């Protein structure tokens, strides 16, 4: 059974339908990419899943339990966390503190316990710090634990965001452009880290990414959004040869108008033995 399931999710902003009947099913311990041109509704979809926006229509479930109507913090506690496209760390907190904030839902100390500073509370704090340091080890930032987040290099900040998202022990992690703005070496490190999320921690990953080589390399399945609609879903191979995908990406460069019929002939398209890649329920 799928771990995560979104069905016919729809979100309107005034007259604009930002996300239109998108359905996505993600198996446990898999890596799924969501791709599409800018403004396709990918980040909006993430915002809906994490509860920052409420969907107008559709259902979203994790482990069969509905997430619609839950607040973002409840969804985080329930097992979905995320990173942000434009890194949103707590800049003036230390690297370790950033991770500890992510652990908020896993700590139980009440205000009274905090004020009384009993041994149970102190143990919990100690364990939280140990776990935080372990997580920093995992994202290779342990040596910077006491530095302010703002002092980290760009690639380190991206890693810290992932570390912070891991702190709540999620089942599913949503990565919004984890390799954006990275050089080839950093991209390789990021790819490696994402694979380790699944292989070592058993976490399911959904990511938005524009770096096609990364997407094609690590994704088990890929969903393609365009103008809020899901125009294709399938394995990397299927997506690579899907005419609608090619049009969505390359048709953009043309006069800015789009027809419903595929334009031009691309080598990949010509070679596609199986043009009928499964499309979404549009």
């Amino acid at each position, binding site marked *: 059974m799928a771990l995560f399931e979104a069905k016919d999710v729809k979100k309107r902003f005034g007259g604009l339908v930002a996300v239109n009947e998108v359905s996505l099913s993600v198996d446990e311990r898999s890596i799924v990419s969501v791709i599409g041109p800018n403004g396709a509704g990918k980040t909006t979809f993430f915002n809906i899943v*994490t509860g*920052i926006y409420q969907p107008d229509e559709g259902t979203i479930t994790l482990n069969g339990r509905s997430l619609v109507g839950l*607040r*973002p*913090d*409840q969804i*985080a*506690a329930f097992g979905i*966390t*995320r990173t*942000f496209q434009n890194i*949103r*760390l*707590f*800049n*003036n*907190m*230390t690297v*370790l*503190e950033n991770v*500890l*904030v*992510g*652990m*908020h*839902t896993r*700590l139980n*100390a009440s*205000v009274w316990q*905090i*004020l009384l*500073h009993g041994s149970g*509370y102190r143990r919990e*704090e100690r364990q*939280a710090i140990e776990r935080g340091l372990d997580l920093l080890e995992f994202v290779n930032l342990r040596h910077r634990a*006491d*530095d*302010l987040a*703002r*002092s980290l290099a760009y690639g380190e900040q991206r890693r810290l965001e992932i570390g*912070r*998202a891991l*702190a*709540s022990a999620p089942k599913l992690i949503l990565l919004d452009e984890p390799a954006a703005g990275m050089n080839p070496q950093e991209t390789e490190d990021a790819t490696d880290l994402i694979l380790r999320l699944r292989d070592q921690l058993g976490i399911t990953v959904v990511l938005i990414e524009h770096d096609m080589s990364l997407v094609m390399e690590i994704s088990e399945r890929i969903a393609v959004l365009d103008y809020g609609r899901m125009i294709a879903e399938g394995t990397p191979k299927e997506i690579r040869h899907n005419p609608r995908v090619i049009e969505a990406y390359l048709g953009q460069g043309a006069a800015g108008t789009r027809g419903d019929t595929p334009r031009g002939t691309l080598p990949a398209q010509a070679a596609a033995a199986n043009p009928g890649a499964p499309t979404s329920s549009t």
Partner: protein
Amino acid sequence: MSTSQQSPALGSTLRERLAASLGQGVTPYVVVVGYVVIASFWLISNPFSTIAFLVFLSSLLAIYYFPIPTWLRVALGLIVLGGVMPYVGNLNQGFLDVVTQAAIFVALALGLNVVVGFAGLLDLGYIAFFAIGAYLWAIFSTPQAANIFPGLAASFPLGSAWFFVFLILGVVAAGLFGVLLGLPVLRLRGDYLAIVTLGFGEVIRLLANNLNRPVNITGGAQGITNIGQPPLFFQPALDALNVQSSPGAEYRMYFYALALVIVLITIMSARRLNDSRVGRAWTAIREDETAAIAMGVPLVRMKLLAFAAGATFAGAMGVLYAAKLRFISPPTFDVVQSISILAMVILGGMGSIPGAVLGATLITLLNLRILPDFANQLVLWRRAGLPIPANFDPVQYQRLFFGLVLILVTIFRPEGLLPERRRRAELKAEGSKDTGEALVQDEQNMVHPDVGIK
């Protein structure tokens, strides 16, 4: 203030600089102990000298900032506040009153610091919680309460033994009102939040002013007089020890001790909250609300908790204040007071606990001691023939000085006198990116004398 549990990551650079310049040997011990001894004797031999008093009080800063072990800090703090200060108080009641007054404002500044400094929620109506504590005890320790509960008229006013119960009730009531204020303003930020809290503060003051009709609850504009005092439970002990003292002096000492105890509890509470998951959540909310909530921080609960926790400090001090002054009326709780407390927090450094303590003490001293003394000095100088205009009275210009101090601080030290590390980094980084990184680098390279001291 004297117990040091600060994590090394948030160590203060002033202390580190002192440690670096004094070395780790016995020098700091000698300097601090020497300072305390000399300042104490100076004040005891000149119990009416404001300068000696200020030098004496600043020995607390030395105790806090010099690199000495915690046990010595606690011991010296006890000697200064528990021994020398009460002794001086017997010689000059005025100074004891000033310190008690300062302690009241320290607790208020610490409470507001939780809301504004920790959680970043600008609250301009904070004095309302102080009013709630004060009116609570004022109403129930006078016949005023009989107006509200005519059926139980015989049981009011409540006896002095109830004071301690009401100290707790003041905390609870202020906390509840904190939540009450928090609920409608949850969605507001910045300016909008400030305006609504300002309104809340005024509503409470106007309620106090007008709730004398149809049922006289608050005494209206006349306020409430003859408020009950706390029980002198130690009287038998004093009699047994054959200590002779007037009730006035006893109460003065009593309130001093109570205020100090409450301040100590507030410092401990503020500190523990700030170092916990709650404090981290507050900082996260201040930094980036959206990211905080996406990481699982329950925004509503944490904001309400900040309002409630901040309010409780003021509630307790309100009860004490009413019992100490024995008279309260609405003008005591007007918006200028809220602004003053905010100014104390800003002067000390937002989010910084030692900053709030210092800011509140400095401004109270400025208002109660330094400006009036300066005025007296001017009179003396004029009599001696110096050309000072006859009707120039610095006390009249209190607010002017106050404003000047704040303007100077915001220009030259926008992060406050004893800034929290985060704020300092924040403000420096806004100034220039390079300095921000240099500063961070700087902090990494510094020694942390506090490591290992628990």
